[in-house]
């Protein structure tokens, strides 16, 4: 496994208020890392720093083998793709056109069709993006991000507005791609989806990493209960780990 992303002691502060502080975060090739934690834990801020949208106030981010500050936008786009939470649909492009925009150079139509199929948006190719439902739009954006075909992918809530069947479809596809060698860091609010598909879990709270490890280490009812401030029960159902809140 080669290291794709290595962030050390990353701090990001606005007006001396630290949104994240001293965060260590790694992603290797073939790895699917779930970033979990309550609202306001600093997950999206961490991703903005890792994506190069924000510049860390302190600490270092190494992408591939170079410091992120040395890379320009085009070089970064060759190496990592990003799914953001913010969506835009002002100009009436069609789904097929939007997904093709993900290709950095020429559009490989076989790859395009495969990805449209994998995200179950083949039937939507002629639709104008503004007419899509929330879940459809999420899958279209995901397809565009996958089209970028980079070694590293940072996905901020890829399951937003997806029904349960499409959640499974997306997570299975990401899992398959990870096994083929791409590295994923994925912010997930659905702990069950995370438990079923991630190799490693990074639990954040109040701007810091509370736990980083495999399911046995992080998906612990005591740890989760303390971070989420809500009773948690971790159980096995068949081959899956299931996390449910308790009263």
């Amino acid at each position, binding site marked *: 496994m080669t290291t794709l992303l290595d962030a050390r002691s990353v701090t990001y502060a606005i007006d001396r208020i630290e949104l994240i502080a001293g965060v260590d975060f790694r992603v290797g090739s073939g790895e699917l890392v779930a970033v979990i934690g309550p609202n306001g834990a600093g997950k999206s801020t961490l991703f903005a720093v890792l994506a190069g949208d924000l510049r860390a106030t302190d600490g270092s981010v190494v992408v591939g083998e170079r410091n992120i500050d040395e890379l320009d936008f085009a070089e970064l786009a060759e190496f990592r793709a990003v799914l953001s939470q913010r969506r*835009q649909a002002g100009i*009436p492009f069609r789904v097929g056109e939007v997904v093709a925009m993900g290709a950095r150079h020429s559009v490989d139509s076989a790859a395009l069709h495969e990805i449209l199929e994998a995200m179950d948006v083949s039937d939507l190719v002629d639709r104008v993006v503004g007419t899509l439902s929330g879940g459809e739009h999420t899958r279209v954006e995901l397809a565009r991000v996958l089209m970028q075909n980079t070694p590293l992918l940072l996905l901020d809530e890829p399951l937003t507005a997806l029904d349960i069947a499409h959640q499974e479809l997306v997570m299975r596809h990401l899992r398959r791609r990870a096994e083929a060698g791409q590295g994923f860091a994925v912010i997930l609010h659905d702990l069950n989806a995370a438990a079923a598909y991630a190799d490693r879990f990074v639990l954040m709270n109040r701007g810091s990493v509370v736990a980083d490890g495999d399911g046995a280490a992080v998906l612990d009812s005591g740890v989760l209960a303390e971070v989420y401030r809500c009773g948690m029960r971790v159980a096995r159902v068949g081959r899956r780990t299931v996390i449910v809140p308790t009263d």
Partner: protein
Amino acid sequence: MTAGKWRVRGSRRGLVGGLAIGVLALVALNLGMGAVSIAPSEVLAVVFRRVGLNIGEVPSATADAVVGTLRLPRALLAITVGGGLAAAGAALQGVFRNSLADPQLLGIGPGAAIGAVVGAVTGGVAGAIAGGTAAGVLVALLLRRLARRAAAEPARFILVGVALGAALTAWVGFFVFASDRSVVPPMEFWLLGSLSGATWRVLGTALVLIGVGVAVLIINGRSLDLLSLGEIQARHLGVDVDLIVTVVLMAVGAVTGATVGAVGVVGFVGLVVPHVVRRAAGPSHRFLMAASILGGAGFVLAADLAARTLLSPVEIGVGLLTALAGGPFFLFLLRRARLA
């Protein structure tokens, strides 16, 4: 807006072909019609001789003077100005991801007119075009600063631009009244636009500036497509957003400013034409801007023909006619934007 409306996007080749034929037909009408009517065969003879071909009858001196020195440069200037404004409008809408953006409406035109008036005082027509270009670039960059705050709300951004335009229009008046009337064209010219000053020299100067600006816009077409996904998304796809937006806005300002220096403010071309083309052929910017050049050329040719002939021998401001057509269209778009 339903998906069905967009499903059939007319063939692009058909659209370009149709627009090109329309522009040629309008050029023919513009050359033949007017206070003096000139037969098509004689018009053709003059045009052939101007490009160095000795085909057909020898045109009369009147025909040669009217077509060769008045109407031909005027028609070509209409094409240059119309094409430039339409391409600039398409780019401006792409940069701000706001389909209500128009270079004149948002104040670039009136701002450029101030520069053109100042330029005219010192350098005549060439000075007016140069001054208009410089001022257009400055106002476009000012708009970028204002848009940073208001971009989240499209309607508010348009209001900011309209307010800027109104303030700058007042300053155009101030500068015109403060200048020597014998060298600076009257208020009417700047605010209503007119192609009556068209000469080969004006055409040449405007064509170079507008041509370079439009080329810059078309080169950045793919980046404008990516920008439509959102600034953050475009950045993630490798676009240096700040650089591209600055370059595109400077080109939009230069193109708009050069047209204002040459013919005054001709409004709504940059709003109406990209809209119609986008409906027919989709929003991909390279094609949109290229096809809008033809559409804008046709629009201004038609408006100028009407300007010269409707109340002949009195000439109407060409911008007044584009506004007569474009104003209601803008209201229609505003209404639709509110419903959506």
